[in-house]
């Protein structure tokens, strides 16, 4: 089998030029301009259409899949206000893409449509389904359920929710030359390759357990019988006043809520990206009524350790087969906690994998990956605060 790969980034402020420049770098590295797939992650600071036109001006016919982000990741490390592209040309691997629109109306149906479109292309060996949903609309967990209804509950669903540079206003999904919102795009990985996935967050629970007494989908309305926001007011004290007018996301992303799940080492995390005027918390995915939640807290060492473990897990899953490419879905909360040393997390991953393999990724508003414990039979869940390391390796 032959696979050629290229990764390119550009920080050029002009969107067309940035697209052109990054795509040019991809071609140069891959020594050609024909690709089965172009994965694109970009800042919302760019005019999105112009950016895609710039990429298309270099790689005319390659199918583009990608989304806007809150910071980009590439072999070069972590960047912002940039565009990162990975181009893959492989004779043995297959990449079939899918699109599902209207997440805010029916996230599950959109997830189904996306998976169905990707799955109809060509039957054969399938390894994983990468999804890139809008991070600000719909219930992220429902999207996963929709895809599982098509691909099977144990089929690995991996991905990251699109971001918008912490603005929490609007995110974009790229599908061919289309730039969409309120949608999910997906890539079904098939053919003679192997996939290793690792996921970890490194947050710890603190304080009492609290019961979610009223919730609808991804909106937590009441905790312990009181307004959901009051939980944060209790823990934050004076600072809680700032939560209401300044966007919630700034602090909510670092102190999420965690749900203990049986047999899993880590809590399943949900952060709220918005507090409503009525004191409800809007999360990226559902928190079922009746769940016991605890406030979660993190420190830099814990976050870096989690990244190391996720990378190690992905590497181990490949059972010694050599790595061709690495895709990273990294929560914005991690970047926030690490601050100036955000770059170190990418270095830790590179070091753990052993070599600077071609790498692309972005800072996400939510992550999708399978749970580890055996009782979940590889079923994928929606996560927050996590880093997903996905290593694509040679065939088994």
């Amino acid at each position, binding site marked *: 089998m032959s696979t050629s790969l290229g990764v390119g980034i550009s920080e050029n*402020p002009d969107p067309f030029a940035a697209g052109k420049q990054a795509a040019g770098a991809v071609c140069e590295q891959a020594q050609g301009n024909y690709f089965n797939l172009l994965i694109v992650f970009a800042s919302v600071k760019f005019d999105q259409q112009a950016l895609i036109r710039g990429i298309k001006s270099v790689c005319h016919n390659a199918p583009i899949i990608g989304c806007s982000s809150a910071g980009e990741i590439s072999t070069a490390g972590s960047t912002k206000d940039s565009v990162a592209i990975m181009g893959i040309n492989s004779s043995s691997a297959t990449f079939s893409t899918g699109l599902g629109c209207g997440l805010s109306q029916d996230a599950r149906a959109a997830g189904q449509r996306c998976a169905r479109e990707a799955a109809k292309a060509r039957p054969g060996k399938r390894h994983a389904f990468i999804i890139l949903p809008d991070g600000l609309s719909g219930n992220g967990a429902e999207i996963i359920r929709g895809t599982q209804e098509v691909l099977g509950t144990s089929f690995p669903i991996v991905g990251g929710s699109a971001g918008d540079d912490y603005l929490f206003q609007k995110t974009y999904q790229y599908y061919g030359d289309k730039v969409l919102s309120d949608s999910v795009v997906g890539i079904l990985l098939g053919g003679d390759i192997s996939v290793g996935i690792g996921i970890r967050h490194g947050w710890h629970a603190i304080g009492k357990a609290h019961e979610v007494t009223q919730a609808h989908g991804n909106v937590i309305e009441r905790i312990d019988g009181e307004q959901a926001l009051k939980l944060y007011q209790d*823990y934050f004290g004076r600072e809680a006043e700032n939560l209401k007018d300044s966007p919630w*996301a700034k602090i909510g992303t670092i102190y999420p809520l965690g749900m203990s799940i049986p047999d899993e080492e880590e809590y399943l995390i949900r952060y709220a990206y918005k507090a409503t005027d009525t004191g409800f918390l809007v999360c990226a995915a559902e928190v079922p009524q009746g769940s016991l939640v605890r406030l979660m807290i993190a420190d830099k*060492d814990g976050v870096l350790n989690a990244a190391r473990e996720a990378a190690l897990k992905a590497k181990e899953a490949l059972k010694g087969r050599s790595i061709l490419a690495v895709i990273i879905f990294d929560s914005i909360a991690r970047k926030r*906690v690490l601050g100036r040393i955000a770059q170190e997390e990418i270095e830790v991953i590179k070091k753990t994998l052993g070599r600077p393999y071609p790498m692309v990724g972005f800072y996400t508003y939510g992550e999708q990956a399978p749970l580890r414990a055996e009782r979940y039979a590889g079923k994928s869940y929606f996560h927050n605060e996590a880093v997903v390391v996905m290593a694509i390796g040679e065939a088994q």
Partner: protein
Amino acid sequence: MIATLTLNIGTVFIVTSALIVAAFGYLVGITERQKKARENLQRSLDKLKKAYNELDEQAKIIVKKDLELNKTQEELDKKLSSLYALHKFSQAISSTFDREKLFSQIDKSFISELGFYRGVLILADREAKGFSIPVAVGYSRQEQEKIKKRLSEKDILGKLKQPLLIDESHLLDEIKKELLQTFSLVSFCVVPIISQEAKLGLIVAGNELAYTRLTEADLEMLSILASQIASGLENVRLYEELWHSHQDLEQRVAQRTKELALANEKLKKIDKLKSEFVSAVSHELRTPLTSIKGYASILTGGKLGAVPAQAKERLEKINKHSDALVKLVNDLLDGARIESGKVEMKLEKLNVKDALDWVADIMAPQMKEKKIEFTQEITKGIPECLADSIQLGRVLTNLMGNAIKFTPEKGKISIKVKQIKDFLQIDIRDSGIGIAEDEIAKVFEEFYRADNEVNQKVKGTGLGLPLVKRIVQAHKGKIWVTSTLGKGTTFSFTLPKA
């Protein structure tokens, strides 16, 4: 630290929760007989509950501290990256004296590195009494025009006394409200740019989004930037001033040089015209003079009959004056011809002593008449010189004639010849009346005659020395004079050795 603590607290919680559940289970099954035991258990349970709540309170403290820490870290990170950006900016502008280059440093990425979303630099245009916007990040042309208009109408710059941090959610005074409306930002800083107590303009930077609310630290950063811009602009101004005055000076020098060259050109032309005129006139004068002299000598010779003594005396005067006139004309003509290069020097090897003897011989009667003591001193073995013998004769007779003329009776005249490198130097020294210091430089000028007793009595043309100078120069030699008034004069000239 926090992580470990959290883990510990976590463990305690799990243990505590388990105990509570167990305790409840136990309590369900109690009977009256177990009342005492139940009371004991209730006490334990209350203790545990208390501990549980206390731990939650501790968790709250930890969260608060962590929140504080995170906020501080973010502020610090932001400040660090702003400082770094400012450092780069100040490095970049310290090496530029170009206004445009200075402004080009303040671009979108710089504004965002400082932590702002939009920014605008406005300069007051003193002459046009308006405003210019050399830098605008995130403002459309239309918005820029609106800003300029509002600034002119409301005298915002005049009212702006100090850096201001403005936030729409706070209570605002008049000026802040104006600024808010002018710049359409939610949270922003406005800083006047002041150089040497003059307000050059203002810089505004801020965010449209509520979640990136600015702080005093941002205001400090923008104030630093404003003062850097002010000093950058001051540098540019000083440099431009210097450059302009330098340009001005160069222009003036060039102008003067051009004028001088023109004047010089004119002078040369005039000089040439003069020479041509002199030469033409001299030719025209010579012919009639020859006739006059011819007729006078015919009359004097008595070929046309005897001439009365009185008439003869007059005729001889005619003859004598005509000779003087011929000499004058010849000198003029020669000077003009030598100057224009029309007279070719017939250079040959000459023994200087022969030339000197010849001159001394000619001048002997005059010297004898004035009882002048004449000496000659020639360095032994001196080489021959390269000269035109006729012209050298003229030089020597001229200089000797002058020496005799200005030396009183019983005076001294000496000639010395010595070799200096490739030249022979001839010094003719007299013990005459000398030349005043201010006149020394003029003696070689045409028609110049020194103002002294001798010249008042004896007539001269003022052409002798200029002619001598021309001849010497035509030999590639030099001529100069040293003199002390009342003591004597030395004329020195050089000729190339053969």
